[in-house]
């Protein structure tokens, strides 16, 4: 197994760390949500990668198809994508409400206001 042959897993790790870094390092709440999305997407790629069988086709019952990719990870990820969309929607809705009551979406400024009150 050579390292380049596993390039999809390198992409997973790179995306995962990028997303994680965005969540931790950014004070802007919207950027945090974007980071969270990148982080989740890396996991989607991980699942899809593991379902792939080299040389395999789509799992269709038809003549001549003997090798096919595992469809289960795709199904799982469909569910996970829905969960991710719901999370993003809720997070953005919260951000809208936060902006209405604080007038900012910057975490540091919000903390400042909370300390003063």
């Amino acid at each position, binding site marked *: 197994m050579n390292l380049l042959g596993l390039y999809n897993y390198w992409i997973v790790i790179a995306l995962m760390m990028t997303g994680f870094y965005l969540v931790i390092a950014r004070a802007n709440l919207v950027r945090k949500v974007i980071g969270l999305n990148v982080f989740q997407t890396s996991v989607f790629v991980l699942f899809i990668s593991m379902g792939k069988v080299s040389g395999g086709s789509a799992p269709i019952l038809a003549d001549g198809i003997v090798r096919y990719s595992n469809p*289960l990870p795709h199904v799982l990820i469909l569910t*996970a994508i829905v969960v991710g969309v719901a999370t993003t929607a809720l997070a953005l809705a919260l951000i809208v409400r936060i902006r209405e009551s604080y007038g900012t979406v910057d975490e540091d400024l919000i903390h400042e206001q909370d300390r003063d009150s």
Partner: protein
Amino acid sequence: MTLAHLPVLQVAVPLILAPVCALTRNARAGWVIALAGSVWSLICAAGLLLRVLQLGPQSYAIGGWEPPWGIALHIDVISAFVLLLLGAIGVMVTIFARLSVEQEIARENISLFYTAYLLCLTGLLGITATGDAFNVFVFLEISSLSSYAMIAMGQDRRALTAAFQYLVMGTIGATFILIGVGLLYMMTGTLNMADLAMRIPAVNDTTTVRAAFAFLTVGISLKLALFPLHLWLPNAYAYAPSVVTAFVAGTATKVAVYVMLRFLFTIFGASFAFGALPLSEIFLVLALVAVFSASFVAIFQEDAKRLLAYSSVAQIGYIMLGISFVSATGLIGAVVHLFNHALMKAALFLALGCVVYRIGSANIDAMAGLGRRMPLTMAAFVIGGFSLIGIPLTVGFISKWYLVLAAIERGWWPVAVLVLAGSLLAVVYVWRVVEAAYFRPAASEGEVREAPWALLAPTWILIGANIYFGIDTDLTVGAASQAAAQLLGSGAIR
């Protein structure tokens, strides 16, 4: 026979009631539907516990698809026990919610609040009932998303930032669990818990399985607010509406502990989980740090809800301490404390809910002199506080007893001493509230009346349970010892 369908019905009914509740757009109708859903899940849970105790574990294949291909629900003693707890707390909190929610949440949002509540209950019941690792993730997200929404409904604007912080940390935790489940699927090709447990030993010497184990442990620890990962909890509990705090404190972290037990003992097996890594030592240290640091921080809080929130982090430390012993007695302690802590925290937060209902704040200074003005509410708080400390004849004593016993059994005398020392810190922070309520003159001249019966009744029923299960431990310790035997048994086979 319908009884065989109980495992799925108890999850499905609240799930179906949730959209119905959203459609009514009527506060009272929403409450009735939420109450119906909670009572239903309590009845189902009681029925399931009886069946499990008589007939052994119950399996249910959803849609008739046989496991390991289809999704299976699997109810054994510990899941039935946790389901019963969820149902009981759900019913009490819902009864309490009618008046409390009317006051704390805008009228047009009340039916949506009950929708979120029913979804949260569904998610928690689902996590407990399922026998499928991926299903755990899905139900976990259902319960988490609805609890973020419920927390954000708090009156203070800081509820919004607390909910957002919880959302970010909760999503990271859930995604870690997803990664862990994915890596396990990669190695074993199955998601069914029983099947996983059978196939993991063959591959457990691989980096992938170890990585899966690490991701799952950290992800679940985030959800259950184990010490360094607890940062979301104090704000979320402090600013959420009173009923939400009581419900989430009594259920969400407890279910996360259940998931931890499932993965550590049923899926990975105790010999791998505690053999491959010094996990027992890690948990022991983190649990003790949690007990002391959180109790210490609790002492200096100005707000009683926040004080109890930090106390929750400390109590979760006790539960993890029980797990870290990896012995039958330790697990009995952990499972009993899981149940008991849910009872005492739900009761205490409901008592604070009564206070907030009358004086509009849970600030300790604002509670001055309340002992004379709201005698029944404060008496409930005091008994709940006794239970938190672990005074005999309350449930807290039973938990501490088993934890100390387990520590002595392992020969860890200093740990036993530390458990008792932790209780002394609990005395200090409970005393702060008691001192304000009973020994300080009333803060304001205004007339404060006792909370209405609709709020006092559920509070006192839970307080009564705190005393009842402190005296008659047949159900709790009986179920916990069977659960401990099952959990350790599945680890001992390999």
